C-alpha cells in the first residue's frame, strides 16, 4: 500500500523536475546559471492560473486533446514499475496497453493540432504521427526481447527479471536494446536530435508546433503530460539500465529517483553536444534503432 502511494506520488510530482534538470544541465554546458530546478513547476502553476485564448476555428476537440492525452498518460503511469517496485496494476498483456495508451494520446494531440486549421500545426502533426509509427517497432522489438528473456508478458515481472546476473549473461543484447530504446526515448519525447523543445518557428519543429495555439491550463496539461511521458519512458529505460537492488524498499526508491535524475542529466548532455538532425535524416535514425533492437532479439533467440 505504501509502495503504491509512493509510486503515485513520484509519478505525479517528479516529472517536471526532470525538465528542470535537463534545463540546468544545458545551461551548465552553455556556461549560464540557468533557470532554477523547480522552474517547470512555477511554469505549470502560472499556466493553471491563466485565462485561455481559443481560436474561432476550433471545436471541442481542441480542448479535449490535451485532456485526453494527459488522462491516457496517467493511466499508462499505473502500469510501469518504478525501480524494483511492482506497478500498482499488472496483468498479462499490460505492456500492449502501455504502448497503446501513448498512441491514444497521440491521436488526440494530433487531432487537436489539426483542429486549429493552421498549416504549421498540421505539418507538426504529420511529422509526429510519421515518426511515432517508425518508433513503434523498436519498442515492440525490445518488449519481445524482454519477453523472451523473462518468459513474462507483463511489465512488472518482465522488468524485475533484469538483474546484474542477466546483464552478465546477455549484456550485448541488452546494450543494443538500451541504445535503441534511448533513441526512441529521445524521439518520442521530441528531444534533440529529433526536435528542439526550445524553438517555435523552425521548420524541423514537431511537438512544440502542434501546441502553438493552446494556452493557459490546456498548455499546462500538455507540458505536464509531456513531462510525464518522458518520465514513464525514462522509467522503462532506467529499469533495464540500472538492475541493482539494495534489498531495502526505501533504498530502491532512492536508487530509482537518482537514476532518473542521472537520465535527465544524460539527456541534457546529449542535447548540449548534438545538433538537431535534418528532418529527412530522422526516419533513417529511427529505422536504425529498430534494426538494433531487432539484433538484440536475434541474439537472445539464436
Amino acid at each position, binding site marked *: 500500500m505504501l509502495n503504491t502511494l509512493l509510486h503515485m506520488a513520484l509519478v505525479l510530482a517528479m516529472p517536471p523536475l526532470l525538465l528542470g534538470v535537463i534545463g540546468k544541465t544545458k545551461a551548465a554546458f552553455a556556461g549560464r546559471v540557468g533557470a532554477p530546478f523547480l522552474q517547470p513547476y512555477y511554469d505549470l502553476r502560472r499556466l493553471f*492560473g*491563466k*485565462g*485561455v*485564448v*481559443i*481560436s474561432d476555428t476550433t*471545436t471541442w*476537440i481542441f*480542448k479535449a486533446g490535451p*485532456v*485526453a492525452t*494527459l*488522462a*491516457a498518460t496517467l*493511466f499508462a503511469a*499505473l502500469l510501469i514499475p518504478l525501480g524494483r517496485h511492482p506497478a500498482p*496494476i499488472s*496483468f498479462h*498483456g499490460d*505492456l*500492449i*496497453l502501455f*504502448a497503446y495508451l501513448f498512441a*491514444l494520446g*497521440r*491521436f488526440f494531440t*494530433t*487531432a487537436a493540432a*489539426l*483542429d486549429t*486549421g*493552421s*498549416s504549421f*500545426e*498540421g*505539418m507538426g*502533426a*504529420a*511529422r509526429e*504521427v*510519421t515518426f*511515432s*509509427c517508425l518508433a*513503434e*517497432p523498436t519498442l*515492440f*522489438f525490445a*518488449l*519481445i*526481447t524482454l519477453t*523472451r528473456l523473462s*518468459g513474462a*508478458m507483463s511489465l512488472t515481472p518482465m522488468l524485475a527479471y533484469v538483474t546484474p546476473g542477466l546483464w552478465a549473461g546477455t549484456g550485448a543484447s541488452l546494450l543494443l536494446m538500451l541504445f535503441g530504446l534511448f533513441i526512441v526515448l529521445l524521439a518520442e519525447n521530441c528531444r534533440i536530435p529529433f526536435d528542439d523543445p526550445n524553438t517555435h*518557428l523552425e521548420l524541423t519543429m514537431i511537438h512544440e508546433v502542434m501546441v502553438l495555439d493552446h494556452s493557459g*491550463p*490546456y498548455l499546462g*496539461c500538455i507540458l505536464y503530460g509531456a513531462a510525464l511521458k518522458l518520465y514513464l519512458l525514462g522509467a522503462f529505460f532506467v529499469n533495464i539500465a540500472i538492475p541493482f537492488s539494495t534489498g531495502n524498499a526505501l533504498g530502491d526508491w532512492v536508487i530509482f529517483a537518482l537514476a532518473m535524475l542521472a537520465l535527465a542529466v544524460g539527456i541534457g548532455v546529449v542535447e548540449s553536444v548534438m545538433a538537431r538532425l535534418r528532418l529527412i535524416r530522422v526516419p533513417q535514425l529511427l529505422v536504425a534503432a529498430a534494426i538494433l533492437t531487432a539484433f538484440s*532479439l536475434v541474439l537472445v*533467440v539464436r
Partner: protein
Amino acid sequence: MCVELCWIDGSPQPVPPAASRSLVPKGKSMFHDMMADPSLLVMIATVLAALSGVPGLVLRYPPLGQRLAAGTACLAALLALPSLAYMLLTGARARYLLELNLPFGACELALDPLSLFFLIPIFLVFAAGACYATGYWPARSHRHTEPSVTFFYGLLSAAMAMVVLSRNGALFLISWEVMALSGYFLLVTEHEEAEVRSAGVVYLVASHLGAAFLLFLFAQLKLATGSFLFPATGTLAVSSSLIFVAALVGFGSKAGIMPLHVWLPSAHANAPSHVSALLSGVMLKMGIYGILRVVSFFPEKPLWWGALLLVAGLTSALMGICVASAQKDVKRLLAYSSIENLGIVAAGVGMALIGQSVNSPRLVWLGLAGALFHVLNHALFKPLMFFAAGSLIHATGTRDLDRMGGLAKRLPASSLLTLAGSIAICGLPPFNGFVSELLLYLGFFGEAVDAPEPYVALGAPVLALVGGVALLSFVKLFGSAFLGAPRSAEAAAGHESPPSMLAPMALLALLCLAGGLFPQGFLALVTPVLGSVFPQAKGYGGLSFNPLWLTALGGALIVTAALLFFALKERARGVCEERGPTWGCGYLRPAPRMQYTASSFGVFFGSLAAPLIRTRIKVAALAGLAPAPVRLSYQPEETILYRVIVPVLEVAGICFSWLRRLQHGEMQFYILYIFATLLLLMLWVR
C-alpha cells in the same frame, strides 16, 4: 420442394439424409414450433432478407417500398440475431435438407458455430444499412435507382447468408455467384459515370477469376470425397495442398489479400456508401469464412500453410495501410484500410494454423480468437466509417478530403460518431479494436517465450507498425474532414445528416465501445467457434488475463478524461476565455486553402513508402508571356497496380482479343454455344 428439418445438438457428424427426421411434431401449432426453434428463425430471416426489396419493385409509391424494406430488414435482424447468439451460447446446431431434385446431390444447409458466427455481421450490417439507406439513398430523390438498389441489397445479404449456410459445394457456388452478381449490380448503381463502369468491370473479372479457383477447389473436393457435400471437421484424410492453394487464391481474392486486392479499392469507393458498408464490412469476410471452412476439413495441416497465410496477411496489412495513408478520397482510404484489417484477420488465421501444426493450443486459441474478434470488430467499425463517409458525401457532395474541412461545426453528431469509429479502427483503447489486436499480440509474444517457432514473434513489430500507420491515416481522415476551416464552398455549406442515418451509426459506435469495455460479451460469441474449427483450441484454458481489467481501466479512463475536460471548461469560464483567430505565426492573411490538406498530411510518410505509392501530378505547361490559368491535379496511385498488374492485364487483353469475335451480341448463337459445350462435355464423359 420438401424441406425436412433435423435438429442435432452437439454432434458435428454429418447425418445421412435418410436418418434426418422431421422436427415438426404432431399436435402443436406451426407458429409455436417456429418460436421454439431458433434455427428456423434464422432461415425465416434469410428468406425475409431475400424478399425485402421485392415490394419496392412493384409498389407504385417507391418511398413506401423502401420503408417496408428497412422494416423487413430490421425484423430479419431482430429474428436472427438473438437466435444466433442463443445457439452460439448454448452450443446448439441444426441441419436442414432442401430436397430439391438437382443433379449435384442433396442440398444441405447447416448451422454450426462457424456459420452462426459469420451470420451475425451479415444480419447486423444488413439491417443497419437498410435503415441508413432511407436517409442516404431516399426513394424520393433517387427514383430510378432506389428500387433496384434495395432489391439487390436484400438479395446480396440473403446470398451471403446462403454462402455461410450451404454444406454442398454446388449450392455454395450458386450462392457465391448470386452474392457476387448482386454486388455487381449494387456497385454499378451510378453507371452513368465511366469510373463506376470500369470499377464494375474490374470487379466482375476479379470475382470470376476467384470463382474459377473455387470451381477447381470444389471439383477437387468432390474427387476426394465422392460427393459435393462438405466433409465434417477434420475428416478429410488427404492433406492436399492443391486444395489449400486454390482456397487461398479463390477466397483470398474475395477477402482482398494483397496482391489479389486489385478490384477492391475502386469497387468500394464507387458503390453507394451503405453498399460499401455491406461489401466491406461483410462480403470480404466471406473469403475468411471460406478459408476457415476449407482448412477445417483437414485433420493435418502442414506448417507452411499457416506460415504462408501469416506472411500474406501481415504483408497485406502493412501494404494496405501504407497505401491508405496516401489517399485523399475518403472511401478509397477506407477501402485500403479494409485490406489492412482483412490482412490482420488472415494473419490471425495463419497463426492458428501454425499453432495447429506445431501442436500449440495456446497459439491456435489466441490466433483464431483474435481473428474472429477482429472479424466482429471490423463488421462494426468499418460500416460505421463508411456510413460516416456517406454523411460527408451527403453534406458536401464530394469524396475528396482535400475539399472538406471544418465539418465538425456543421455535423456535430456525425463528427462525434466518426471520432469513435476512428479510434476503434486504429485499435486504440478503450474501443473494441484494441481487444482483438491484444489477443494477436499475446499470441505473437507467447511464441517468443519457449515455443518451437520463436520467429512467429516477429509479427508483433509489424503489427505495431501497421497500428502506427493506421493512426496516421485516421487522424488524417478525421482531421481533414471535420477539423480546421472549410476548404471549399460545399464544405462551408455542409449540413447534418437526418436521424435515419445517424441512428445506425450511433448503434454501431455504441457496439464498438461495448466491445472494448466488455470484451467478455464478444469473447463469449467467439469461443464456441474455436473448438469447432480447430479441435486443439479446446486444450487451452482461455484468456490469460482477466478482461475485467479492460473494463475497469477503460471505464476509468473515460471518466477521468471527462472529469478533467469539464473541470477545465468550468475553470476557463470562471477566469476568462477570449476568442480570436488561429495564430498565423505572424502571417496576417491566412486563407482556408492554405491549411494542411489530407494529401499534404500523408506526403511525408508517403515519401518513406515511395515504392508502394506515388503521386501522379497533372499540370499543363505555362506558355506565352501572359499565360492562361492552368489547373494542377494530383492523384495518389498504387505502384503495384499501375506498374505490375495493369500492364499484365493489358497484355492479357491483347492476347485474348480474338475471343471477342465470339461475342457478337446475337442471342441465338449464344444458345448454340451452350448447346455445343454441353454436347461436347457429354461426349467427353461417356
